[in-house]
């Protein structure tokens, strides 16, 4: 049946059809839906792991026992999973193991735009790269065949435009492969030096064998074109931009496997055209490979290694003309994302700003605490960096900064990699105060369950990790819980914990305002008679409050009645 599917949904369909049995992932835009859609198939076991390293190791374990397995992550998640990745390359697999990684060129929802293709080369693991949903589905099935035939994990590189675009796919039936058994094999699975030294040559031989496969593989195909002044080598969504811009004008070598790359096929293609142009987003990965083959190619001198490409960009750079749009000569104010009305993070950032603290931030919705008028965050690096960074800041800091610095981290991010930083704080005894913003969900990526919520990916009740007990267990004696809607209590708690001469954790606990089970009291009314227009309520950056004719006005369609603004009004105008 023909149907429209997101690239991520098509990956999940591919998993189903290929007989995958085990999925373990950590959410991250734009990769999240691969796992969410996989969880909709009853036949697939699917779970959210605490982080990507755990997810990959769990998927490896499932492969070892003889079941086809999968794990998904965003590009920065692959950094977290890099440790097992490089050694799983040596052990190989039992049943097929596929790793989905989604890059985010243009940084629609990420802290950097690293190019994951380098990981394939560095870890010596083959990487497939689909250009639409139909290929995503087909490549998953192919990836499992390659994984089992060549005894290797396989990486499948997605990107925002493939993950989050719907295109037409034709679905098939689920076919279960022959069940494999686990057999002990210390030389293959115990990677201590003596064994690993013997495995490394196997890895190199495997890459050679896969390079040979790449020479004849259908997924690395040459599409003929009448005008041989250019020959274009491309992959992923860039292939679609090239075809959109030029149709079948120029010959195209479309690479479906980005590592290892065919050598002879590229050389033959180059010999058949006047000039080779590589069209790829981010780094000049294919370009470098071509240059290593001694070919003269154009790539990054034409196309930036920053941000996304598009059909117009491709056309213009290769001498084509594009249709201009109609532009309005007007300053259009930006519309940046904001914390939602009723967001429990808002008030805590107001308090931290008011106290003029240095705030080491982390990854999640609450990164928006950095945006004016809250503007309360000093740093954002990666998952967990707030807690570990705070330890260094406090330990090495001078007296001037003493008692003036905190870390803020969400519940899911804390479990992901904040807890190890907290162990360091306890063990090496820094006088640090960590604030866990516990909104009882993984918010930014669209409400995924996590180990602290009491529910699993399938929606079933499960063991709930108790944050207070966890913090105490790692050695933090001062652990307290506050309601972020009560700003006075929050400020008092932060003040006390900063003054204490030992490490402490404040859990700011209130569920995300968008969760369905959360009941709100209903919108607040503004009294224009009482309002003096002092704008004190504007300092929390609530999208439901604006100034109309010098008076505060509440948008009743947005306001949920959290009451935070009421606490700022000295004139009782908000009630």
């Amino acid at each position, binding site marked *: 049946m023909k*149907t429209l599917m997101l690239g991520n949904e098509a990956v999940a369909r591919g998993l189903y059809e290929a007989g995958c049995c085990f999925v373990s992932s950590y959410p991250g835009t734009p990769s999240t839906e691969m796992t969410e859609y996989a969880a909709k198939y009853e036949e697939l076991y699917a779970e959210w792991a605490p982080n990507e390293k755990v997810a990959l190791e769990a998927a490896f374990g499932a492969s070892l026992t003889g079941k086809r397995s999968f794990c998904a992550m965003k590009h920065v998640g692959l950094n977290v999973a890099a440790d097992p990745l490089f050694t799983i390359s040596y052990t190989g697999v039992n049943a097929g193991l596929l790793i989905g990684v989604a890059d985010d060129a243009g940084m629609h929802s990420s802290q950097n735009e690293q190019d994951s293709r380098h990981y394939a080369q560095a870890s010596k693991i083959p990487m497939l790269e689909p250009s639409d949903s139909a290929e995503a589905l087909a490549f998953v099935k192919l990836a499992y065949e390659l994984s089992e035939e060549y005894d290797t994990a396989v990486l499948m590189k997605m990107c925002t435009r493939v993950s989050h675009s719907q295109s037409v796919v034709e679905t098939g039936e689920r076919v279960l492969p022959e069940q494999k058994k686990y057999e002990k094999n210390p030389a293959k699975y115990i990677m201590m030096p003596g064994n690993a030294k013997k495995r490394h040559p196997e890895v190199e031989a495997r890459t050679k064998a896969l390079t040979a496969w790449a020479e004849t593989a259908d997924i690395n195909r040459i599409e003929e074109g009448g005008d041989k002044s250019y020959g274009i080598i491309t992959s992923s969504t860039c292939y679609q931009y090239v075809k959109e811009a030029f149709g079948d004008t120029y010959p195209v070598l479309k690479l479906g496997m980005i590592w290892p790359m065919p050598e002879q096929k590229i050389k033959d293609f180059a010999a058949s055209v006047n000039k080779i142009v590589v069209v790829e987003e981010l780094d000049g990965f294919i370009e470098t490979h071509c240059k290593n083959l001694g070919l003269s190619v154009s790539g990054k001198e034409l196309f930036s290694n920053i941000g996304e490409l598009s059909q117009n960009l491709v056309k213009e750079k290769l001498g084509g003309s594009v249709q201009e749009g109609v532009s309005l000569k007007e300053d259009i*104010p930006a519309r940046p994302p904001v914390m939602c009305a009723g967001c429990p993070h808002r008030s805590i950032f107001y308090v931290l700003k008011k106290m003029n603290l240095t705030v080491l931030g982390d990854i999640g919705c609450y990164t928006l605490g950095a945006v004016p008028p809250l503007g309360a965050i000093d740093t954002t690096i990666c998952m967990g960096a707030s807690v570990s960074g705070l330890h260094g800041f406090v330990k090495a800091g001078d007296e001037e900064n003493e008692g003036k610095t905190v870390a803020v981290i969400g519940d899911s991010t804390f479990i992901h990699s904040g807890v190890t930083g907290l162990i360091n704080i306890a063990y090496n005894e820094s006088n640090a105060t960590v604030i866990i913003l516990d909104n009882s969900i993984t918010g930014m990526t669209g409400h995924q369950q996590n180990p602290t919520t009491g529910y699993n990916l399938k929606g079933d009740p499960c063991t709930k990790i108790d944050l207070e007990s966890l913090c105490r267990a790692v050695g933090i004696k001062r652990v307290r819980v506050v309601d972020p809607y009560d700003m006075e209590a929050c400020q008092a708690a932060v003040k006390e914990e900063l003054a204490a001469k030992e490490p402490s954790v404040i859990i700011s606990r209130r569920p995300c305002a968008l969760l369905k089970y959360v009941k709100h009291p209903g919108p607040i009314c503004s009294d224009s008679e009482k309002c003096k227009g002092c704008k004190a309520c504007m300092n929390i950056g609530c999208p439901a409050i604006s100034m109309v004719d010098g008076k505060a006005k509440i948008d009743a369609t947005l306001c949920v009645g959290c009451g935070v603004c009421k606490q700022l009004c000295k004139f009782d105008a908000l009630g």
Partner: protein
Amino acid sequence: METKNIMIVGVGGQGTLLASKLLGRLLLSRGYDVKVSEVHGMSQRGGSVVTYVRWGDRVCSPIIDKGQADCILSFELLEGARYTEYLKPGGRLIVNSQQINPMPVIAGMAVYPENLKEKLGAIGIDVDAFDALALAEEAGNSKAVNLVLMGRLSQYFDFTKEEWMEAIEHSVPPKFLELNKKAFELGTARTA
């Protein structure tokens, strides 16, 4: 046929994804090659959101570039103005005249431009602006703005009412079907 391009733009949370889902289903049922591209994540938190819908004999790129859109369907006035560069010369802007202030305007750091509808008309854009929110409320729920706008869009494209209804039935929960159908009807019936 030449590929057709519609951009659906608005403010995160306004229901633009349902509109693109509905349109995608309709186009697929007509046998076209279809691509629908959206961006999730950070952009949804009340930020500016864009969805691209493309159909034809063979659609390659999932995105619409500047100067390529046949039509922009905008859930909010400022968002309609933001993306005019994506319209083809003579392209059409169907826009809900509702104004939602972005944070820089709320915070007093920027001004919401005045008379946008007239300014857009003055640069040659075929503007169909109307109060879709009022019609959604008339249908029974302010959240039905998306179906009101779909109704208006239906006036400019050659699909049958049955095809639209089939797509609506498959895209909205049964509980809200009548409400959404009513919103669609109200969108088709009124003129600016």
